[in-house]
């Protein structure tokens, strides 16, 4: 990587973070935050963490920003200045500065940046790189670590997304024709983006391509950057785009609320189900190698590889549904009839 480029990016990131916190318009702040995330994922890509960069581009710069916009759409967007208690801010500043200084004291103690033989790179990580092929036959080590060596983390990560979806539904969802008293027609902007012909047509064309790409990302995660998360987020984003360019009811015609919930649960079920099957076949939870007993024409190594694909599909289901579900909840303010 080019260090000058890196230097500029790192500086820019700080500036963008500050701007997004300074801007009085919340919509603007969200957009700046999106830009911040995007710069961040450039940095990560520069450091060789393509999978992370990929995810951040989809999640941080994409979906997160859309979540914020959906929230702001239903509420107020301008911050009205108010006289503030500066002593509190100063106190917090002090806390933060002390914490930061404390964190910085350790920087000199870190191994040299980029050292391939630092403990982080040498100990466990090196094992993964050297054994991934022989253990799992998956060349993308990120995928093999994600979906096999540390698949237990990943399963719970999927569960986290599922939890968020269920939790948000529980908090925000209202039955229709029930208390519409609190702020029904709240802050609807005069401009309705779904009426724009250009946007409609453009997204109509884009959505299928996005979805095909997403499927590719899921399926080809063994050999190239990508996997269940990235694919799931892109799938979700395509649906979000669809609903943004038309409106929510159009989306719900294709994919109802019920399916959002059920599919997200099924995603987790696929993942944990694979684990349970492994247990039933007499090995430890998530030990894919025993799946060779039931998968046709596989040895224990290939069984791992195949099981990873199954698991990634489960992840993709859950993530996609969670992204769409969270977005629709936020955008429609829990009523699931109209909204952004």
């Amino acid at each position: 990587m080019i260090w000058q480029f890196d230097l500029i990016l790192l500086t820019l990131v700080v500036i963008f973070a500050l701007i997004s916190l300074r801007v009085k318009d919340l919509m603007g702040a969200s957009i700046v935050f999106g830009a911040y995330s995007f710069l961040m994922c450039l940095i990560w890509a520069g450091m060789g963490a393509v999978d992370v960069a990929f995810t951040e581009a989809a999640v941080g710069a994409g979906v997160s920003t859309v979540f914020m916009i959906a929230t702001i759409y239903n509420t107020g967007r301008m911050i009205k200045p108010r006289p503030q208690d500066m002593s509190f801010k100063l106190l917090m500043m002090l806390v933060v500065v002390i914490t930061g200084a404390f964190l910085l004291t350790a920087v000199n103690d870190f191994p040299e940046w980029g050292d391939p033989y630092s403990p982080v790179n040498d100990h466990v990580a090196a094992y993964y790189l050297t054994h991934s092929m022989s253990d799992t036959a998956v060349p993308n080590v990120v995928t093999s670590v994600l979906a096999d060596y540390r698949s237990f983390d990943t399963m719970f990560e999927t569960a986290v997304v599922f939890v968020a979806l269920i939790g948000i539904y529980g908090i925000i969802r209202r039955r229709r024709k029930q208390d519409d008293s609190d702020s029904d027609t709240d802050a609807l902007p005069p401009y309705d983006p779904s009426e724009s012909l250009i946007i409609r047509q453009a997204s109509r064309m884009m959505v299928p391509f996005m979805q095909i790409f997403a499927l590719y990302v899921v399926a080809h995660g063994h050999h190239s950057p990508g996997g269940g998360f990235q694919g799931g987020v892109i799938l979700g984003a395509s649906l979000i785009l669809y609903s943004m360019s038309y409106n929510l009811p159009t989306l719900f015609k294709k994919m109802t609320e019920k399916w959002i919930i059920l599919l997200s649960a099924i995603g987790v079920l696929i993942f944990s189900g694979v684990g349970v099957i492994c247990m039933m076949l007499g090995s430890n939870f998530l030990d894919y190698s025993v799946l060779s007993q039931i998968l046709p024409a596989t040895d224990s190594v290939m069984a791992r590889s195949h099981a990873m694909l199954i698991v990634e599909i489960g992840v993709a289901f859950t993530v996609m549904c969670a992204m769409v579900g969270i977005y629709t909840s936020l955008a429609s303010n829990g009523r699931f009839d109209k909204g952004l």
Partner: protein
Amino acid sequence: MSTQAPVLMIIAPLIASIFITLIGWFRPKFSHPIAVISLLISSIASIQVFQMVLSNGPQQYFLGNWPAPFGIEYVIDHLNSLLLVTISVVATLVALYAKRSVEKELPDKLANYYTLFVLLVTGLLGISITGDAFNLYVLLEIAALTSYALIAFAKGRSLMATFNYVMMGSIGACFYLLGVGYLFIKTGTLNMTNLSQILVSLHMSQAVLVGFVLIILGMWVKMAFFPVHGWLSNAYTYAPTASTCLIAPLMTKVSVYVMIRVMTSVFSTEYVFNHLSWHLVVVAMASVAILVGSMMALSQRDLKKCMTYLVVAEIGYMVGGAWLGNPAGMTGATYHIIADAAMTACLFMAVGCIIYKHGHTSLDTMKGIFRKMPLTMLGFVVGMLSMIGVPPTCGFFSKWYLISGAIEAGQWHFMLALLFSSLVNAIIFFRIIEIGFFGSLGSETPDPHEHQDVAVKEAPLSMVLPMLVVAGALIGIGIYTSDIISLVIQPLISATF
């Protein structure tokens, strides 16, 4: 290959949560039985594991059959085996208890509620059982996210309280993750056993020090240790009854467990107490936490809120005990994790029964509560006696060890704080007894005969029974103290000191 019980206790509620969502969408009333069954399976599995640990010593379980530093492993030793039993059993009882209360408070969200309920238990069990620092973070987040939602379900004032909780919880989790990062950069491993092996030679490292401090700080935020206790009271007070009953006893205790785990298993007592040697400052903070919590509890006019501040004070007990730096203090702290989980569960369940029948828990309006709800108040009395530390309830024994630890370490202020908090608990307790006896608080003249013939209006049996079981457990734990200490805590203490 060993038994599957360790993973079964985590997986049962996880899979149950999926089925609750799938089935509950169509038939919400099935949610509760599924939740209870899965938690029962968990309890049985955890008891089985506990017995295995007692007879065969610490157990390991490799997920995905990957050997330890490369895959994720479960480590069940003396420290967490009993905690696992406590979590799963308390959760089962709370689940039984929750039925009527949730039906009343959140009738249209049964499926969502129980999904999150069992997932919270999954998270808590997972945190306690895992031997991997990063896996712990993921489960910490599961537990955190579910508890946010479970609290926010109550709507109303709970929303803002939860928002603050989300902020503090995220800071806590981020600090933990960052701390793990600082350790990771020096060691290259996330496995706790492996970490502790490598860290032995890294005691002088500044990065390791920062990492340790960050993890501890993160846990303090999570457990609402003074001075970052502000979020706890509102969040717990405005939450739905069943959520408080589940979260208040278990969530903070698990954070305390993580703290002790990091102090003893990842680092060593040698490092924490001899190398760093600022543990006495922490004990002083714990004393302040106890004082502040007790004072705040004393000034409340609402029973539930009062109880939440007692939780803050109890956290001071455990942190202080763990940082006293001697075996007695550590024994007290670990014993108190179990004791306090049962105590808080009992009290919040009793408070929940009162809410169920009475609508609220403002102290001024609880005239005749003893006659109206005799069984509920029986449970409450036992819980409160344990809080005060009256033998033979378990609260007495934890206090005993904590005080002996304080004396051994010469930390008189901590001992005084403990005694002060006992007295405050006694005052709070007798304030409620007085309401039972005199009908009112303060200067109002009580009328001896006005509430003599209040009809008994007890909360439903499905709520009262689990509470009484917990109340009985308080005495049971107290009676079996010496067994618990010698079988469970002693091996742990002798391994770490």
